[in-house]
């Protein structure tokens, strides 16, 4: 068996310049978990179908389970861990609406909701459903997530 290929990449992680030695087959989930002990992006379906592994790369959400870490060289990455000290209006609205049960899907939904509100400040219920349809929640908290998105959007418009 050939030796595993490794390489070093430099990127910005939650506002900090970092570098990491990675293996060629690593995905973003591997990179964050093994390189940085960040577990908010989680592998579930492993096929780009559930959104549990969502990471924001250069401003766009990507499936961390599929995106190769090597391609993140020079990129800017934001994860759910990017605001540890204070909760943002989206997180607060998720708590108020009770928009999670087991919480496994929650980071993906929170990150996607931030994107959604940035793109559509006053989303209709239909727009919310369409935008978030790539994120799955097995606990079935969808009605509460819709409520949370609406709450957060209203609060952010008012701010």
């Amino acid at each position, binding site marked *: *068996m050939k030796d*595993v290929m490794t390489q070093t990449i430099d990127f910005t992680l939650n506002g900090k310049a970092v570098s990491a030695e990675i293996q060629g*087959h690593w995905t973003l989930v591997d990179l964050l*978990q093994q390189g940085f002990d*960040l*577990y*908010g*992006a*989680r592998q*579930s*379906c*492993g*096929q780009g*179908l*559930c959104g*549990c592994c969502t990471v924001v790369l250069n401003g766009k959400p990507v499936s961390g389970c599929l995106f190769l870490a090597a391609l993140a060289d020079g990129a800017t990455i934001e*994860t*759910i*861990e990017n*605001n*540890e000290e204070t*909760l943002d209006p989206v*997180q607060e609205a*998720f*708590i*108020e609406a*009770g928009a*999670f*049960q*087991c*919480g*496994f*899907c*929650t*980071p993906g939904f*929170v990150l996607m909701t931030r994107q959604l509100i940035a793109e559509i400040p006053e989303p209709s219920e239909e727009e*919310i*459903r*369409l935008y*978030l*349809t*790539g*994120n*799955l*929640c*097995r*606990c*079935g*908290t*969808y*009605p*509460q*997530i*819709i409520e949370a998105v609406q709450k957060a959007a209203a609060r952010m418009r008012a701010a």
Partner: protein
Amino acid sequence: MNDQITQIRAVGQSHPRREAREKVTGRIEYIHNLRLPNMLYGKIFRSTVAHARIVSIDTSEAAACPGVDMVLTGEDIRKIMPDPHFGVMFHDQPVLALDKVRYVGEPVAIVLASDPNVAAEAVALIDVDYDELEPVFDEMEALSAETFVHDELKPGIPEIQFLKGVRDTNVGFPYQLRHGGDVDKAFEEADRVFEHTFRTHPSAHVPLEPPVTVAEPTGAGLTLHTANQSPSFVRYEISRLLGWPQHKIRVRVPYLGGGFGAKLWIRLEALVAAAALLAKRPVKVSLSMEEQFYTITKHGATLKIKSGLDKDGRITARKCEVFWNGGAYADIGPAVAFHAGMTAAGPYDIENVAIDSFSMYTNRPVAGAMRGFGHPQLIWAYENHTDMMAHELGIDPLEFRRRNILREGKEHATGTALNTSSVEKVLDRVAERLQWGKPFERGEGTVKRGRGFAIGIKASIAPSTSEAIVRLGADGSATLMCSSVDMGQGSDTAHAQIVAEVLNMPVEMVHVVHPDTDVTPYDTGTLGSRSLYHMGHAARLAAEDAKAKLEELAAEVGAQPGSNVPIWELFARKNGMPVGHVVGTASFIPDGHIPPDPMTGQSPHITPYWMLGATGAEVEIDTETGRVTVLRMINVADTGTQINPKIVDHQISGASIMQLGQTMQEKVHFDFGQVTNASFADYKIPSMLDIPQIETSVLDGAEADGPFGAKGVGETGSFCVSSAIANAVFDAVGVRVSEMPITGETVYRAMRAAAGEPLEEE
């Protein structure tokens, strides 16, 4: 009198989940995230055939693969577990296959390596030679088949020892109930008799965190860090397998990324424990999404139901025969056959009832407990049947049910009276929310609309035990130690509210210690909507005990009864500093359980409480394609007092969404025993686009014996969804779908068949 102290109301408040912040920041602890120093990763080699004798296993190439530490087969497991068969009821499931494989996907070997990718590569190098046997897949075929999944039944627990030594059968467990008089005679005397057969399909739990276990050998024994709903059982079973005393096994469970029954009893624990002890290093096995489909499923079943009616439309006789497809190993399947079998005749007042419910072995992946514990399948049958009879008799389905439901205080077919729950109120509520008596907009052109409802009943599991410890500290805080697992249902929050209420302290002052069998005492398991009632009581009693001990302490240090000496000072007087604890303990087993008679299933006290639910559904059907859109779903639940109304609401709605998926779209497909859709690409769980308008309506009258009047609600929302939708489909287009899922194709085929122009079978 001490009237200055105001009572804090903790119970009945919608406190946010206590771990909410960690969940929205992604910092919550799951075993999924756990990495230990020096840890190996295990990948499982699985059987590719459904039923075969193992001729040989060649692991040499895999073992020689650089980076591989060990490859283990069933024979290796014997070195450390003399009889490596586990199971909560039958000791029939090998840790790794021994002489035989019994389903496609069964674990045969495990590769351990420091890099999970290396382990996965090496798995592909294992070669097994099989001598194939005739498989049996269908539960009805299993009844008469010449091929047997097991040569001999291997009952584990005392209650089923009468099955010991039974050979040449695929019936794992036969349950029967006989109520009232001679049911055959009642059928003869009946004015009308109706008989129908229904089927349900296997589906998958697929919590988004798949099962995962880390085993860590320690100086004292073995620690299992595992995503499991029944830590106390894991400790017991692993100690039994290893022949070690229980105290040498420590089982630790933080939060679960969903459970729904998938993470009950033993999943990976026995295998990972053995692997870690043989490797003398920590080992982690995380299943992939695909592997979940080979690990545990929800029972498919064939359900036959027959009713005899008198000329007034009263049901006088009912016979139910249920065949549960349990897959290759028993798991909790026999208890599903038993427990769900109990209520197979539904929440109806029927004089003569005969029920036979069989858990069947087949060459399919194991079926176990899933939210509702067999009841959604049964209710699918009896509530379709009820509507079909009402239609045949020309009686409105609401009126027909009113004539037949079990009224309060009347005896259920099990012989136990229905005391605090009211079928009538549940029925009235769903009818009212649907505005059943009012005209309904039925659609136009090729789009038709319909509505329907269903009601269902479930008994709580019994008997079962919950123990709790409440420690009161000098800083005025309380610590609850219990082995209930918070898998998203909010048990930590609810139990903390109960403790806070008893101790009259803010709920934030109650700390909940997660299951850790070195610390937290015994609990049967987090299943069957039992925790709030059983652990709720244990937590309440332990808190009361702690409170009494604090009063003793006050007396001991000379504080006048009812005086306002602060807690810290009581401890300071005793210990010289404001430090120390009083410890309250409790063990709760509901009073009065009487095991049912094995021949008749009769017992005057079979359950501590009943759970009742109803669902109303409105659907729209495109008659050109058969496509069904559920527009509105109303879930009615008899909840007892709500400890946390918001969490109750979300549990009911979440359960109904899960069942909606299984009704409309989820089905595990097999091709000669091989799951062919083991991926979210092909097995579609509901997404945000599949969700109708959902309403919850609760009947929250106190459950007489519940802690603060509460009882379990985790499953109630799942009961009636499928049958309510089927009844609504019939109402819209006049066809009855007798097998789930209710896809556009099934409805379209049924419509064409009804019109006398059936489509060709595929």
